[in-house]
């Protein structure tokens, strides 16, 4: 359902274009599969929040099964799905949520407000010139995962 509401990208060109054309707004890229249950839950929250954050953020979904996208899967070190990466003016924004990986948000958001808070925090930090921001979501609602160093 959410894939009809949010744009799904399957090619590197499309991802490049959306990154380059999003100016002075937060770009939220969700890397995942539309068949995965956790991704579906995550997508539902993204779709519901899209209008609320439309003034300062843009949301797009990326299908990781597409071959063209594998470059970005490797570049962004995506090993777990869904992974959400944030950009601002073609610059990657890091999020310190207390987990091992600050470059992305791994897993689904519990509630819509968490996602909106994260995007807002990233926007505020970006407007102040910060490239890494503190996650406003309480630790109990942050998904936990194990990060392997280069598959070791």
């Amino acid at each position, binding site marked *: 359902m959410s894939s009809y509401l949010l744009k799904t990208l399957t090619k*590197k*060109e499309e991802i*490049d*274009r959306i*990154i*380059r*054309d999003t*100016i*002075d707004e937060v770009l939220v890229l969700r890397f995942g599969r539309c068949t995965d249950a956790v991704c579906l839950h995550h997508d539902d929250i993204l779709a519901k929040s899209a209008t609320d954050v439309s003034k300062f953020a843009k949301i797009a979904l990326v299908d990781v099964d597409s071959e063209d996208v594998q*470059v970005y899967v*490797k*570049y*962004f*070190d995506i090993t777990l799905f869904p992974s959400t990466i944030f*950009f*601002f*003016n*073609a*610059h*990657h*924004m*890091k999020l310190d949520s207390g987990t091992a*990986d600050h*470059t992305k948000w791994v897993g689904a958001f519990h509630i819509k407000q968490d996602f909106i808070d994260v995007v807002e925090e990233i926007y505020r*930090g*970006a*407007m*102040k*010139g*910060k*490239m890494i921001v503190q996650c406003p979501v309480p630790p109990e609602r942050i998904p936990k995962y194990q*990060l392997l*160093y*280069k598959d070791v």
Partner: protein
Amino acid sequence: MKKPSKKSETEFCKVCRLHHDQGSRHKYFPRHKDFLSTFLDRFRSKIADVRFFLKNPSVLRPEEQSQNRVWCVFCDEDIVELGSSFACSKAINHFASSDHLKNVKQFLWKNGPAMDCIDDFRISEADVAKWRRKCQSLGNEDASSFKGSCGQSGTSNDIHNKLAFKTMDKIENVPAPHINSHHSNDVMPLQYNTNKFQISHSELSGVAHHASYLNMDASHLPLCTDPLRNGFGKDSIASRTKDFPSNGNYCNQEDKKQIKGSYSSPDGLVVTSISSSHSSDACGNVHSGAPPPWLDANDGKSSNVQLNQSDMSSFQAKIPGKTRKLNPNRVGAEWAERRKIEIEMEKRGHGINNKIDADWLPNFGRVWQSGTRKESRKEFEKEKRKLVKPESISIESEPVKVQPYISKRARRESVENGCG
């Protein structure tokens, strides 16, 4: 050691309108000074009106004598022009009197600023003498014309007089002979009824409007057959108004509005009418069924509006206000500015490469990076090249033959045996 402040008797300050026991110190307080400045400014404006009639003496009609009055704040006296034949004659005489001068001095000593502004609140004897001479000459000149005009207009223009008294109640001293003597060519008396004539005779509407100011004086002005001939116009009336004071005692700001083309009704409403020259009959109006002007104007522009809507983002980028609001130190600010310019150029069709380089990658800080983001990108590109090279090598190389191991000595011996 500080001396305890003496408490003086309670006094009433006329300027501040309050009781105080500060004694002579009261006049130095900033609040008192503020009130005093406004107090004196008000009186200055009143005396300016009187000075106007000092320079331009005019006859005072008996009907308006009771309305012509001034309150002198220094003497606490109301000066009413009852029984005087010229405007402000009693006021002029009062301001020139020695009693008034004495009261002014006393007031300034008690309340106020330095004594050097005494002359602002009194009239000198020399000025009064000049005024008297002017009055004498005026009285001789207009005695006959004044009587004549009174006789003619008494019966026919009663309605106009009533209107004049109702609407121009603040204009108390605008005598006809004054107008006649100073601007004989500029304005002419009203010849027609203003109400009906305004609607039915549009060619005379301008005349009617400009002459409406003169309603009150129609009774006293000599009749004229051809008002248009004498250059009736706004400019002439505007020049007349300069001679009249602007203060509320003797003249009202509304009269200027009236002069510009307004008509005052018996109810006191001031209505400004638009002359027929402004409305072009060729375009039509609501009654004729013509379309409204905004629809006509937008027909040509609607397509432009539609086109512009598609370029809203670029136009928003163009708006300098928006770029100024954004923090110049925000993340990717320089890139954003460059990108906006590129987008604008693309929209205008200046043909910059729309195609993105296939190897383009955004600024990304990798998970296991050590160093800057550029280094992480270089690292990724190296890894990418390594991935590509082994694949290409494996495709190009021949299949490897597996052979048993032969030691160096055995190889040497076989070579020697071969040679030998």
